Structures are given as C-alpha cells and as structure tokens.
C-alpha cells in the first residue's frame, strides 16, 4: 500500500528539457556558483588540479604519472562535476518549462483606475506595471485582471486557467470567501471593481514563477543541516587523503632505507581517492532532490511559498481537517427511512419523495434519489400540485395536492404542525412514541432526523447523514501508521461530531469549532511539541492558518487566507493536504537514502584504490585487491568512473523521489537501510569489477 502524489503525464526525460539541461550543466561550472555546494566544489578543484598535472606531465614528460592516466582521471572528474550539474539542471528544467507558460500570463496589460469604488467614478488608464496597492481598478468582461486584489463590488465569472490549468470558469464576488482575484486571469462576464493588494513584481503570479523556476530557492533547514554533515565528511576525507601523502613518504623512505625501491603515492591517485570518498552521490544530487520536491508539489497543483514549508510538511504529525468536503461529501444526504408503526417503508418513501420533488437543495435531491431507489419506480409530480417551500417560520417544506398536505421538517416543527392540523386517528396528540424514539435514535447517531407527515398523520422519519468519502478511512489508517494524528474540525454539536469521527476513523475531533478554539487547539498541539497542518479558505481561518506550521489555503478562498497560509492549493481540494505531507516526507527520505548509499559506497572504493595506490611500496598489499582488478591504473580509473556514473544512474530516483509507504518509522528504516545501506556497501563491487573488465578488455588501462 503506497501513497503516490498525483503524477502528471510529463515524462521524466523530456528531450527539450534534457537538451537545455546539458547546456546549463556547463554554465553551472562557474566556481562562484559551485561554491554553494561544498562537496562538488571540492571535485571541481580536484578536476582543475589534475588537469594542471596533466599539462605538467605532458610538457615535462616526468610528471606525477603517465600523461594518459592523468588525462583519463581528469576527464572523469570533470564528468563527475558535469553530471551533478546536469542533475540540478534537469530538476530546474522541468520548472522552467512551466515558468515560461506562466510568464505569458504576466504580460503588461492596460488597467482602468477609478478614483472611487463606483462604476461612474473618474477613470484613468494606467499600465498594470504601475499599479500600487490600494489602487482601485475596474475590470469588465473580456479584460485581463491587472493585479492581485480583493473585489470591492460586483460579481463575475473569471477564467483562472492561466494559473490553475482548470478551464471551467469560477465565480468571484465581493464579500464572503470568494472575493480574491489573481492578476493575469480573465473576466468572462459582468464586471468587477477591485482593490489592488500586491506591488508589481510581488504578485502571486510572480511568486509562483520564482518558485517554479527555483530562482529564489533558499536551502531548507534540513538541507542546511545535511550540508553541514556532508561538509564535515568532506573535511574528514580531505584530511585522510592529504595525510596519506606523508604516510606514503614515510613508507617510501623506510623502504628505501631497507634497500627497496622508493615508490610513493601519486597526487593524481590521491585526488581520485578524495573524489571517490567524499559524498559526491548525495552532494551532486542534493539540490536536484529539493527542486524536484517543489516540482512535484507544482505537479499536484500546490504552490508553496518556500521549500521550508514543503519540508515542514514531512514533519507534520497532526492534521486538522475540515469535516465538510475533506472527510465527508459537502452536504448531508438521506441514508435511511424509519416508518412509523402501521406505515410501510414504501408509503413513507413515496410521501418523502413527493415532498421533495420540488426541493432543489442537495438534501432534498438526496431524498428523491434514496426514495426512488427504495421504491424501484419513478414518481411524478401530480397535476395541480402546489409546492410549499421551506420558510424560516414554518421550518417545513412539502407539497399540497388533491387535498393532501405532505410536509417534511424538523421533528419539533412537524410536532407543532400535526398538533394544529389534528390527527384523525389521535386528535390533539404530538408525535407518536415510536417516531419520537426513531428521532432520538437518528440524532444519537449524529445524523439529522426529518419527520414526514401527511396531513396530521405522522408517517415516519428520514435520516439525513453525513456521508464519509470513500477510502478516507483507509487513508487515515495509513496516516496513523506513519505516526500522524488526524483531527476533524466541524461546527456540528459534539454528538454528531463524535459519530462522524468514529465512522471516518479520525483520532480526534473539535466540535462546535470557532476560529478562536481552532487557534487554541493548534497552539495546544504546538505547545506539546507537535507540528500542525491545516487547510482553510475563509478570512476567519486566517489566524489559524498563520499559526499552523503547514497551512494550505484554497485558491478559491480569500486573499487574507492565501496570505496567511504558506501554500496555496490551486485545485481548492482540501484532501490534498495528505499529498502535501507525502511529498514533504519523500524529499527527506530521498536525501537520507542517498546519503547512506553514498557513504556506504566508500568501503568498496577503499578496496579498489588503497592497494592500487601503495602496491608499488608494499607489494604485499595486493592481497587487499579482493576484486582482482587488472592493474593499479585500471583500479583507480574504474572507481572514479563508477563514482561519476552512479550520479547519472540515480538522477531518476532523485527526481521521482522514494516511494513513501504507510509504515511505522522503524519498518521504513529497516527496509531502506537494507536497500541503501547494505546495497550501497555491496553494489559497487561488481560494477567496479565490470568497468575494470571493460577497460582492460579494450586495452585502455
């Protein structure tokens, strides 16, 4: 059972992106850029150093080693750097393609600036690039909205496909939770008066382009910590190789004193050893992993304001989920009929359907669907029927025809209704006892009871319940196995909330939620050391969104909510939070696995290089050449080539990320340690041997 973030059709190695990445790989050789990545910077210096050694050997013919050998090492060291640059360029390339598309939406457009928020106010034309926050603009049908802002007046349908990729227009209106508009989107009908809220160059679209391109990419906290560890390891291995030279001097001097030959280790071999030992695999792929993680978020149509937020998503251990739309389908639906004594289910269903035929609310429609399902036949509105709509006074709705008055409504409303209408069988009475019992039962289950009456005769109860989404319970189970608590937020009363919470399988719930107690709950969890994620769309969600560690705002929501959150979901799908967490975890896991792999690789490289480096001084060290590599030169070269090629081989893993499994930490760790730790220990042996066989077979070394 695995959780995959939504994967789009874009292939991993799109030829256009690959071509661009190859070009960029060379551009990235600039040392001023390379120094940001200490591991690969060391490789670049090593490559330059061996190149100098090569020319020195070529000119003097008495250099560090044979010119051919130095040249081969030097070329492969350059490849190592280029491969790492290529990986980064590949990761960026995918974002760049998307950024180009977004940039088209950002072109300068004319804007009509109003002196006041009225259509008849004084108008002035200005290019969108000169708009300032607070400016009021009028946008009419067919025009492009010139900047991010809030609607002051008007209702319009807006095409937001430039940003969301969704072609169906959305309604935007002043007031409420759908008042935010984004620059670069197009008004299709009607008009809007908008107050601009973003400076030019800082709009949502600009942020999105920067994010996608990775231009403003800052290293995430974990990336910094890992960088420090890698730099530490690089220094350790630098010390190991640098000190190996004097150690070699000692050995050569002692052997010479004992009458042997004074071979010592060459600088070329030491540089090769250094590059093989320092964690180039993870060092070369580290930034690609980060960029690819952001890219996966974008593929899932989530725009994160920073990589930090994506990474924090992996750490989240409490998810606050709104009940409506996330856990349950938007509205309550009819799920069962409970007829009164002496009434058949068919009679009740028929009456309920009739009372609901002209009811356009989702609840009404669901009663029709359920009733027709039970009856097995269609029911039409009788001739001359008069629908009775729901009013706040009567709190009932229904239909009058042929002298019958069918009503459905809350139990107390129907009780009052039948008391006044009068039951021909039991005049003056309220609801029958069995109906009252059914009403209580339904309410206890957290559902809403609707009572149906025909005239004064109470026919029974319709149960309206929240319908929990398919598979959501499994999803929460997976979360629980990964150590993530799910908390349902709902405005319902505690009884209803508890029932739905039990059905959906969440760990906890907050009933009768208000913005204040939501905020308090987040603070409580954080105080206990948890990291909290939530989704929200309304302005009143803003404080809680700002407080949460990971806050996904719905694109359909208000500007305030989008500002407060650290991610925006363009699809406005609250369930996406689960994917966000997965992508965050994936980023960390991929880094961890490749770090382990990279360090474990070193063992085999010692077995290849150490005997090769010193066999001239101590022939007995040939015993350590357990791979039986054909010659010292071939052994060193094979290790260097393996070290370079493994970067290329792991690019797909770095870009795609590890598969996140719903399993406890210990299980995941055991599996990944076996694959990347033990695997990393063993894998290089056969491959280095294979490269050696090819080299010696071709007579190259």
């Amino acid at each position, binding site marked *: 059972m695995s959780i995959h973030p939504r994967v789009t059709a874009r292939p991993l190695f799109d030829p256009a992106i690959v071509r661009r990445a190859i070009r960029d790989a060379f551009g990235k050789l600039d040392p001023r850029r390379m120094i940001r990545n200490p591991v690969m910077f060391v490789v670049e210096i090593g490559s330059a150093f061996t190149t100098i050694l090569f020319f020195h050997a070529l000119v003097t013919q008495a250099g560090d080693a044979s010119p051919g050998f130095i040249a081969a090492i030097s070329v492969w060291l350059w490849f190592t750097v280029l491969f790492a640059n290529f990986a980064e360029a590949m990761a960026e390339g995918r974002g760049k393609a998307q950024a180009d598309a977004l940039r088209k939406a950002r072109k300068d457009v004319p804007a009509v600036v109003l002196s006041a928020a009225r259509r008849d106010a004084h108008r002035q034309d200005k290019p969108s690039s000169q708009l300032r926050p607070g400016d009021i603009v009028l946008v009419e049908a067919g025009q492009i909205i010139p900047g991010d802002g809030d609607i002051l007046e008007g209702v319009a349908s807006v095409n937001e496909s430039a940003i969301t990729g969704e072609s169906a227009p959305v309604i935007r209106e002043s007031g409420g939770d759908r008042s935010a508009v984004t620059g670069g989107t197009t008004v299709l009908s009607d008009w809007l008066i908008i107050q601009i809220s973003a400076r030019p160059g800082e709009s949502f679209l600009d942020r999105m382009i920067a994010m996608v391109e990775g231009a403003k990419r800052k290293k995430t906290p974990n990336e910094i910590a890992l960088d*420090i560890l890698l730099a530490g390891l690089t220094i350790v291995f630098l010390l*190991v190789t640098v000190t190996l030279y004097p150690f070699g*001097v000692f*050995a050569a001097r002692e052997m010479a004193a004992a009458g042997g030959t004074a071979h010592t280790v060459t600088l070329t071999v030491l540089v090769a050893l250094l590059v093989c030992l320092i964690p180039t695999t993870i060092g070369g792929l580290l930034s690609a992993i980060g960029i690819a993680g952001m890219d996966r978020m974008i593929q899932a149509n989530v725009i994160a304001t920073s990589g930090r937020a994506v*990474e924090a998503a992996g750490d989240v251990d409490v998810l606050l989920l709104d009940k409506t739309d996330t856990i349950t389908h938007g509205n309550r639906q009819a799920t069962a009929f409970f007829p009164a004594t002496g009434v058949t289910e068919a009679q009740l269903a028929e009456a309920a359907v009739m009372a609901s035929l002209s009811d356009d609310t989702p609840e009404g429609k669901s009663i029709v669907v359920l009733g027709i399902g039970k009856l097995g036949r269609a029911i039409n509105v009788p001739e001359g029927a008069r629908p009775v709509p729901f009013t706040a006074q009567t709190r009932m709705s229904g239909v009058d025809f042929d002298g019958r008055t069918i009503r459905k409504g809350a139990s107390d409303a129907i009780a009052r209704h039948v008391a006044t209408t009068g039951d021909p069988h039991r005049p003056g009475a309220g609801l029958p006892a069995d109906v009252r019992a059914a009403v209580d039962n339904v309410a206890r289950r957290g559902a809403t009871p609707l009572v149906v009456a025909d005239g004064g005769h109470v026919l029974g109860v319709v149960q309206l319940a929240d319908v929990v989404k398919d598979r959501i319970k499994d999803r929460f189970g997976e979360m629980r196995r990964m150590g993530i608590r799910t908390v349902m937020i709902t405005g319902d009363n505690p009884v209803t909330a508890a029932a739905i919470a039990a059905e959906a399988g969440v760990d906890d719930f907050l009933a009768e939620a208000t913005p204040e107690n939501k905020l308090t709950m987040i603070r409580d969890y954080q105080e206990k050391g948890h990291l909290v994620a939530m989704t929200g769309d309304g302005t009143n969600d803003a404080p809680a969104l700002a407080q949460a560690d990971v806050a996904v705002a719905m694109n359909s929501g208000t500007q305030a909510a989008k500002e407060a959150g650290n991610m925006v979901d363009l699809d406005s799908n609250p369930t996406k939070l689960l994917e966000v967490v997965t992508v965050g975890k994936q980023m960390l896991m991929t880094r961890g696995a490749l770090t382990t792999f990279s360090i474990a690789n070193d063992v085999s490289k*010692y077995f290849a290089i150490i005997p090769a480096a010193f066999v001239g001084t101590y022939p007995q060290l040939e015993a350590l050449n357990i791979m039986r590599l054909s010659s010292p030169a071939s052994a060193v070269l094979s290790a260097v080539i393996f070290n370079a090629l493994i970067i290329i081989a792991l690019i797909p893993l770095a870009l795609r990320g590890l598969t996140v499994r719903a399993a406890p930490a210990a299980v995941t760790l055991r599996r990944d340690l076996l694959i990347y730790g033990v695997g990393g220990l063993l894998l290089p042996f056969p491959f280095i041997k294979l490269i050696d066989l090819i080299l010696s077979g071709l007579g190259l070394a």
Partner: protein
Amino acid sequence: MTATGIGQIILYAIVLVALGIPLGAYMARVYTGQATFAQRVLGPVERLFYRLFGIKPDQEQSWKQYAIAAMVFNLLGIVVVYLLQRMQAHLPENPNGLANVDPRVAFNTAVSFGTNTNWQAYGGESTMSHLVQSAALGVQNFVSAATGMAVLIPLIRGFTRRHADTVGSFWVDLTRPTLYILLPLSIVLAVFLVQQGVPQTTDGKETAALLDAQPGTPPADARPGTIVSPVDDQPRDATRGGVNGPASPDQGGRESPPVINQPIAVGPVASQVAIKQLGTNGGGYYNVKSAHPLENPTPLSNFVECLSILLISGALCFTFGRMIGSRKQGIALLVTMAILLVPFVALTLQQEQQPSPALSSLSVDAQASALQPGGNMEGKEARLGISASALWSTTTTAASNGSVNSMHDSYTPLGGMSPIFLMALGEVSFGGVGSGLYGLLIFAIVAVFIAGLMVGRTPEFLGKKIEAYEMKMASFAILVPVAAVLLGAAFACLVDETYTKALSNHGPHGFSEVLYAFVSQGNNNGSAFGGLTASGTFYATAGGICMWVARYWIILPTLAIAGSLAKKKIVPPSSGTLPTTGPLFVVLLVGVVLLVGALSFVPALALGPIVEHLVLHP
C-alpha cells in the same frame, strides 16, 4: 582462544554489569541531588568548598558560563601541574632528589593529566617526586575524570529539560562526583589493593639484597624498580636521574663497583593506581604501569583493576537511562558500547594465542597444548598470561584509560591493531568516564539525523529535534580527533626527529608506533605502543597540542549542543518517531561509529599493522 580465556571474559562481563547497575543508580542519585550515604558523611566538606570559593550551589549556569568555568578550571589545573613539575627539585616530598622536569615533557605531562589522557612521556618513578605524583598528577586524576563526567551531565539535562536557559552548575557537577563517587570508590579500591600487596607509603625506596649479585659494570639500562625487567619499556631517554644515580647509556661502558643491593621504588602507589583505573586516567605509578608486580601483584588484583577500567563508564549508561527516564535507552547505549568492543577483544585474543611465525620458523613450539598455554608471549607478563593481557589491552583502549599490563608494541600486527582501532573510533566504546558516553551521544545524534531523514522526518533524539546547529557541533566534535590524529601523525612522518631519534623499529611497524602515539593522544587515551621515544621536542609538543585540542574542542561543542537542546521543546513520540531503544538503532549506531572510524583510519592502518601482517603471513 582457550576455554579459560573465554571464561575469563564472560565472568568479566557478568561482574561488570552486576556492579554497573547499582553504581549507575547511585550516580543518578548523586547527580539529581538526592540524599546518599556519602552525602551524609561528606556533605559538610561539600558545603565548605562552596563557602570557601563563594559558590552558590543552586545558581545554575548557561552553557557558555558552564563551558567557561570548565575551561578556566582545567587551564588553571594544567598550569599548576606544569609549575610543580618545573619546581619539584626545590619543593618538599622529593625523597629521591629528582631534578626539575624538562619543560617540553612538563608541558606534555601537564596537558596529558589535565585532559584525562595520561600519556606519559616520562618514566614515573624516576622522573616525578611524590609531591608531583600526588598533589599534581593525583589531583588531576580526580578532577580530570570529574570534568569528563561534568560535561556529560549538562548534555543529559539538555535532553530532559524544555525551554531551559541553564544546564546546571559546573562547580556542583564537579564537586559532587569527586566527593561522592570517585573518592569513595577509589578508597575502597585502594584498600583492596593494599590488602593484595600494593605499597602505600611516603618512603622513596626499599632496598633488597640481590640473590645473584652482579659483578662489575651494570647493564646500561639498569634502573630502579626493574626487578624482573618484564619488558623493554617505552620512553627510553626519559629515565634520566634515577634513584640509583645517573644511569644513562653513555655511562654504560664505564667501570663501576659490583651491585649487591637493588633499590626498589615505592611510594603512595595503591591510591594512585585506584583512581587511575577508576577515572580512566591510566597514568601508572611505575613506568611499566600495571605490568609491574607492585602495581598489580595478584591475579585477583589484575581482575579487579581491569574491571575498574570500564566500571564507571559502563555504569554511566545506567545513570543516563535513569536520568532521562528511559532505562531501555541506557541499556541500548551500553549494548552499543559492548558490541563495539567484543569483536576487538576476540580479534586480539585470537591473534595473540597464535604462535609468532618468526618463532615457529625457528622450530619454537608455541602452540597451545595441555602443557603450555602457548601463543605470543613477547611483552606479556608470564604471571598474567595471554587472556588477561588481551582483555586488558582492549578494554584499556576502548575506555580511554591507557594503563597497560602488557606491552602492546610486542603484540602481533593484528592483535596490536585492535587497540589502535578502538582508540580511533573516538573513545566511544565505554571511553573515558563521562567523555565516552557524551562522545557516543554525539555519534547517536549523527546516526539519528541520517535515520530521521530516511524515515522522512526532521530527525529527533529523545524528543529533541536535531537541526543544523546540532549537526554543526556534532560534525565538529567528530572531526576534531580525526584531524588531531591524522595531522599529528602526518607531521611526524615529515620531521627528522622521527627517523633519527624516535623510532626504534622501522618499516610498517615503525609507522604503527608513530600512528599509535597520535591515535592515543588525539583521542585522550594515553596508552603507549612503546618502542617510540616520545620525549623529543616534536613529539612532546605536538602530542601536547593533540591532547589539548582533542579534549577541549570536543567539550565545547558538546556543551553547546547541551545548551541548544535544553532550549527546545520535547516532541512527543509517535509511530512516526524512530525508536532509539531497539536493536535497529543499536545496529545503526554501531554502523555509524564503525564506518566513520574505518573510513578515517583504514588507509593509515593499511600502511601499518595490515601490511605488517601481510609481510609476516605471506
């Protein structure tokens, strides 16, 4: 390996754990300020100290204040030890009339004892007066050990506190363990050793009539105290000014009267030996340390002394478990330490039990049989045998003790590699008192970091998030000893002193001697391979710097981590949290320690013991 040998080791492990559990619990009581019997007796002394030095025991320090207090205290201690050595000829308690100590050796020794290393670039009984032995070296034996423990405690508090700005009071954390842990334990051990026959006196020497009087010229290296001349001991030229008058090699050829008496150096030996074993100091009273029959007279004394090496370091794991409220965590760390140690004990035991190929080729039968234990007996006390020697040599290097009961220089190449490797792991398998555990916890932080990434969470250890700052400090702490060792040994390979003066063996074995010297000092162990003259300018100075750097540049980042952890909140565990008590974590931690150790030192070992082994066994 013989059955007796394996039996000895199993017995050793059982007794160690049996004593470690109650001692660990007791130490936890001392550190958390709960009443103990020792406190009732010595409480007034503790309070007197505080009054004398104006210390308010309940006034806690931030990690920086704590670190400054520790640094200043240690620096003062080192200065005092240096000055006492340089002035010993003019000071009392110098019955044998020893001269002032050479400045380079005095510097090396002062740093050595201040840092809990106890590397000895001198011969004890023939260089240091009683005053220096007890007031300088003896005092440092206590306080350097207590300093190590005092650095561990704030780290433990770092894990247990939340949103805290302070990590404890250095003065309290220094005084309490000295008074309530080290002092009582070393008194018990000293009394036991006296009972076993170890001298404890203020006299300088005893004179024994030789059964076999030596006519005429004495051998050039006749020295006081070498009644059985067990081994060829190290620091050759550091033996100037022995009690028997000058006995330097240049006088070897001169005529001298027949020798009928031998002076035997004695002194306050038992007390010194007790604390040097318990406090993982290792600086013996005699030059040959516990191979000397007066330091280590009986099989029982050998067993108990060997046990004392690991006792406190092992018991601190239990203390840790109790203080953080998870005994399982303490046990996991102890198991980690044991897993790191056992294979090396086995390797050395197995290698030493083999007859030397050099002797076998001369038709010497050194196979173990019913009539003889066999094996490589060169450099080992015949009284103690191979198993007791192998166990001691590996435990003393696993813990940063450094006392010896056999000469590691004479071990087989691979048998002698175990001690080097155990030290090179950073002294984290038991290690020094306190320092071993905090060293292992630093490695645990790195292990947890990598593991945390692999499970997709910001790593946390015992509920504390491990972030960039902790990684910076942990990387630094791991880097420092590696740098000290490798750079020290590298410079040694480049200076002429090595080739002209220091080396007594050449080729790969000579390299092992140089490497051993710096691995030992750069990890604050202090044991010597022997064979290397370490009192020359380069070795005394470079060694002193290595010891200094390796001790304090690990203490500082450790305290910094303690301070940073104490400020953080505690993340409650969930099934997404990596459990750090199970076998998986132990395997991971062992793997990280071994991998870092192996990857840093394998090339050097390949040029020393490994090539030597391959030469010997073609």
